[in-house]
């Protein structure tokens, strides 16, 4: 699936606004630094973290290299256990399948477990247009849904909101879709959680359809694994009669044993906990327990294409822990919305262009939304070399994009490349620059016109030296004395 225009502003434009939002920067700075420190502390506890990380990377890489085999194995295991597997090539197909499945139950409501895959395909919106209400039950996801906002973080979709903003959203919006918030609600976290519990309970008791994703799908046994902190996911997975899970094809692991590695890597990387409070495993249907009607929709949506790219395929190892977001200095300033995608931060900057192509301005701007500082790679529990991937995708971008600005940059880069190909050309360029340097003296250069204003609006620029090192060396060390 390529060439989809997400209709978003480019990253620099969106970030331009976000950086000026002092409240947002404050909320984000606080939240990410807290979770960053928690993660660092629990990771430091494990002597074998690097081995675990290497195992995680190896298991995923292996699975991806034989994905067709494992997918088939998964399908037969699910079928044998009384479930049904559906294959969806893209978002439209997945949405159609899920809508149809809900319709078959005769229900017009569903409760949802927090899921990136369903966000990726815009499932809630698709269901809404078919007259089906899908209620998010994850606390942060609920906040975002009530506010008709967009998630800005993989793990904490409402990370851009603080407590008092959440209280306002609850007071304003809860009554529109069920149990209202108490009139005297304060911004005390316990009270906020209690209000959410009340609001959600009503929905759990009523619901007969649940929609989920999965953190892992075990090929050997056809099991889905859902990892969460609040227990609301477990309510959805066990109470309603009908369960529909939308699962990206890269979520597979070969065997039950492999979970051991990931159940250590994931909670430590994502919430900074040694173990997450709830891990639910669902293997087909069992009489008198859990859903009696169970469907898995296996979602491709650009993944096969990403898999075919030798360098790019490693992005599919991602277990969506969000550690890379929390350490990313760019994410911390720009916020998740600036990425214009459900996958923000460093992983979004590599995954989104791979899933949707680089034809549109907004996805093409994402590989450049990084300083290549490498902090993301250092924390990634499956050792995805995000900086290398970013550079790889930038290369793809320069080849595929043909707009006037891209051509202008290409010409400039070719020119500079030509200069750097020969020291005599570089020497001549330096002599011209040093003329400018003499003009400015040794002071820094103040404001310059576009495009250099992008530098000098906030920073002085250094004046070129009146004598390059090369000239100095020739004058002092070679005796040949180039005095021009």
């Amino acid at each position, binding site marked *: 699936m390529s060439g989809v225009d997400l209709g978003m502003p480019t*990253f*620099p434009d969106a*970030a*331009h606004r976000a*950086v000026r939002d002092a409240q947002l920067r404050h909320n984000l700075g606080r939240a990410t630094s807290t979770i960053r420190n928690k993660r660092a502390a629990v990771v430091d506890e494990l002597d074998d973290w690097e081995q675990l990380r290497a195992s995680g990377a190896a298991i995923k890489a292996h699975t991806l290299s034989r994905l067709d085999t494992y997918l088939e194995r998964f399908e037969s295991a699910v079928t044998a256990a009384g479930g049904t597997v559906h294959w969806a090539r893209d978002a439209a197909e997945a949405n159609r399948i899920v809508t149809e499945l809900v319709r078959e139950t005769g229900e017009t409501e569903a409760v949802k477990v927090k899921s990136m895959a369903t966000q990726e395909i815009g499932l809630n919106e698709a269901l809404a247009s078919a007259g089906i209400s899908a209620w998010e039950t994850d606390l942060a996801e609920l906040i975002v849904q009530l506010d008709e906002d967009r998630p800005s973080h993989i793990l904490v979709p409402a990370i851009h909101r603080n407590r008092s903003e959440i209280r306002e959203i609850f007071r304003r919006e809860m009554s529109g879709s069920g149990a209202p918030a108490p009139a005297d609600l304060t911004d005390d976290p316990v009270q906020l959680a209690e209000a959410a519990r009340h609001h959600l309970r009503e929905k759990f008791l009523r619901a007969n359809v649940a929609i989920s994703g999965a953190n892992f799908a075990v090929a050997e046994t056809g099991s889905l694994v859902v990892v969460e902190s609040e227990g609301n996911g477990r309510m959805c997975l066990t109470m309603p009669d009908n369960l529909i899970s939308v699962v990206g094809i890269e979520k597979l692991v070969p065997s039950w044993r492999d979970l051991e590695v990931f159940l250590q890597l994931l909670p430590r990387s994502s919430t900074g906990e040694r173990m997450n409070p709830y891990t639910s495993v669902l293997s087909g249907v069992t009489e008198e327990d859990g859903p009696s009607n169970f469907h898995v929709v296996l979602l491709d949506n650009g993944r096969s294409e990403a898999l075919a790219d030798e360098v790019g395929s490693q992005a599919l190892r991602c277990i969506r822990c969000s550690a890379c977001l929390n350490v990313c*200095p*760019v994410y911390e*300033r*720009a916020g998740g919305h600036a990425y214009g995608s459900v996958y923000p931060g460093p992983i979004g900057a590599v995954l989104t262009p791979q899933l949707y192509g680089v034809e549109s301005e907004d996805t093409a*701007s994402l*590989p*450049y*939304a*990084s*300083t*290549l*500082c*490498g*902090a993301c790679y*250092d924390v990634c529990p499956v050792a995805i070399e995000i900086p290398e991937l970013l*550079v790889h*995708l*930038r*290369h*793809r*971008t*320069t080849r595929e994009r043909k707009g006037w600005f891209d051509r202008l*940059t290409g010409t400039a*880069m*070719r020119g*500079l*490349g*030509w*200069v*750097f*190909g*020969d*020291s005599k050309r*570089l020497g001549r360029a*330096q002599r011209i*620059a040093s003329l400018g340097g003499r003009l400015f003296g040794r002071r*820094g250069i103040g404001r310059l016109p576009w*495009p250099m204003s*992008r*530098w*000098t*609006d*906030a*920073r*002085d*620029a*250094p004046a*070129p*030296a009146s*004598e*390059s*090192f*090369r000239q*100095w*060396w020739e004058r002092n060390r070679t005796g040949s004395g180039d005095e021009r």
Partner: protein
Amino acid sequence: MRVALFATCLGDTLFPGAVRATLRVLERLGCTVDFPPGQTCCGQMHTNTGYHEQAVPAVRSFVTAFEGYDHVVAPSGSCVGSIRHQHDIVAERSGDRKLSEAVDRVSPHVYELSEFLVDVLGVTDVGSYFPHRVTYHPTCHSLRMLRVGDKPRRLLSEVRGIRLLELPEAEQCCGFGGTFALKNPDVSVAMGADKTRHVRETGAEVLCASDSSCLMHLGGLLDRQREGIRTMHLAEILAGTEEDR
């Protein structure tokens, strides 16, 4: 010991003082220093911006200039990182087998200054004197591409007269990021502003780093803020001796 000096395009053109300082330190420690005149640039700006084909001439000129040297030293963690981790990618993409082989021969001999001093020459006290309050920013590529660890700080802590001040959140990126500073100026400046705020909090007179590029960005911000905090390359601090006073 015979050493080839790689000035880097930025050092050569904009910050020759840092290159001369590198030369001084190396010669003071008894090295015989060559400046291969055919050198130009490591090609990092092209590579990182995605122009891999256009980086080929720079990579070619680099290996041609430095082939045969046992030790190549550059005052830039970033450029050395690019040489070590990207030259092979650029060469391989170009399809030129000879270039790939030359890259494989040359890259292992290239060192960032602090690596060369500590790992190869085995010194941390290089006889320097610098009686000022200094804080050190460990730039991302030195830290995460080269893993230089605390080598620059060990060198600095041996400098006589220096007062080394701890930089809060030192390991966070300064926001330069090559063309990132132009493509995403708002985020770049926001990151740099946080970094310079931390620098001010230390009470340092001098901000030191081993990368002229990051110093150019932070120095540009500090100059605009008119706080009187200077930026200096690690080599420039190490170059000073008591006799210079």
